């Protein structure tokens, strides 16, 4: 599912800024630096995000720079998350706390001690948890500065835009009706501020006339 296979769901952006002159040399270093890392290699982490090959979510190595598809730069953004069910964490913590109390012959545990136990249990359960993966395609036209991103959730899109900024040191500006309207007027040689003259339609009021 995405830009290359199946149906596509996506949001649109424009890159605010100029493409660096040495992007052919610079971008591969940055992409590699922000390439996806498996949660297995990140002990204690619940979430990992990074770039992978657009047609292979298991390849964060980018041996050949096949993401340069002139005039595009095409990558997928992979998001892995490990989740421990709240009930399971509570159950294992209680078991551990009871064992400690019995072993040490005490009736109550201090708050700090309980927090330490909770963190140790969480860390142990995280190692056993299987991550859920999400993969979202990203295609950037280096010619037009338009970026298509294969998701529409506001939260995910905001995180993606920030990750893009960190990787390429360029800001993404979302494309939305008002911005599109300003650009449309500009392209047709009209004053962009004309869009502010467009008022909402009140069809119910018109219907009463």
């Amino acid at each position, binding site marked *: 599912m995405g830009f290359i296979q199946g149906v596509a769901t*996506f949001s649109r952006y424009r890159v605010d800024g100029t493409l660096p002159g040495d992007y052919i040399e610079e971008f591969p270093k940055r992409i590699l630096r922000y390439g996806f890392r498996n949660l297995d290699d990140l002990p204690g982490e619940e979430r990992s995000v990074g770039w992978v090959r657009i047609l292979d979510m298991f390849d964060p190595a980018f041996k050949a720079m096949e993401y340069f598809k002139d005039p595009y730069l095409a990558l997928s953004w992979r998001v892995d998350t490990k989740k421990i069910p709240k009930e399971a964490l509570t159950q294992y913590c209680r078991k551990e706390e009871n064992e400690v109390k019995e072993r040490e012959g005490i009736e109550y545990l201090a708050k700090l001690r309980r927090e330490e136990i909770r963190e140790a249990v969480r860390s142990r359960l995280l190692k056993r948890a299987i991550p859920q993966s999400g993969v979202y395609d990203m295609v950037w036209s280096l010619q037009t500065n338009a970026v298509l991103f294969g998701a529409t959730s506001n939260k995910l899109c905001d995180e993606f835009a920030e990750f893009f900024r960190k990787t390429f040191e360029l800001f993404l500006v979302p494309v939305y*009706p008002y911005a599109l309207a300003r650009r*449309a007027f500009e392209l047709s040689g009209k004053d962009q501020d004309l869009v502010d003259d467009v008022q909402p339609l009140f069809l119910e009021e018109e219907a009463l006339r």
Partner: protein
Amino acid sequence: MSVLDEVREHTFLGKDFLVWLWCKSETLDGLFDLGDEGEVELWFEGKITLQSDSERSAQTITCTGENARIREARFALREAKKVTSARLHLKEGRDEWSFDLDSMWMNFHSLKMPKILQEKGEDPDALFYQRMFLLEKAVAFMDALFSRYLEARVSPTWQTEELPALMNWIHEGVLP
């Protein structure tokens, strides 16, 4: 003003565009002349979601069916409800796309593109380029349709011709 504030303040742009597009798709038999972009056919394809503008009592109606000209959906436009998303079908020559377009961001959802026949041993990048060509084409058509709407809105004939025709379509469902 933040992007999100700007989006919220002008959320009517996308909603009113979809109402206009729905009306035009029915009154022009789905044919749109987009000048340099060529001629396309567009029709609403069976699913329209409408929402009231009132923040206090936001009501959502989703109308589904083979024919989007369902009475309930059009009636809702007279009840201060606006189109917030619709399933659209776009056709240019032999190429056809269908997708949901939302009014807030004008994002594409579940876009089905024309099938691409791949031959064995073909360069895998060929598929990428063909898909991107088709995808960007759909985006360009929708942008061109949005531009047509904006031109109509700032045209002197909006009040004298376009709006009365739109109201006529809403009331009667007859050709203007």
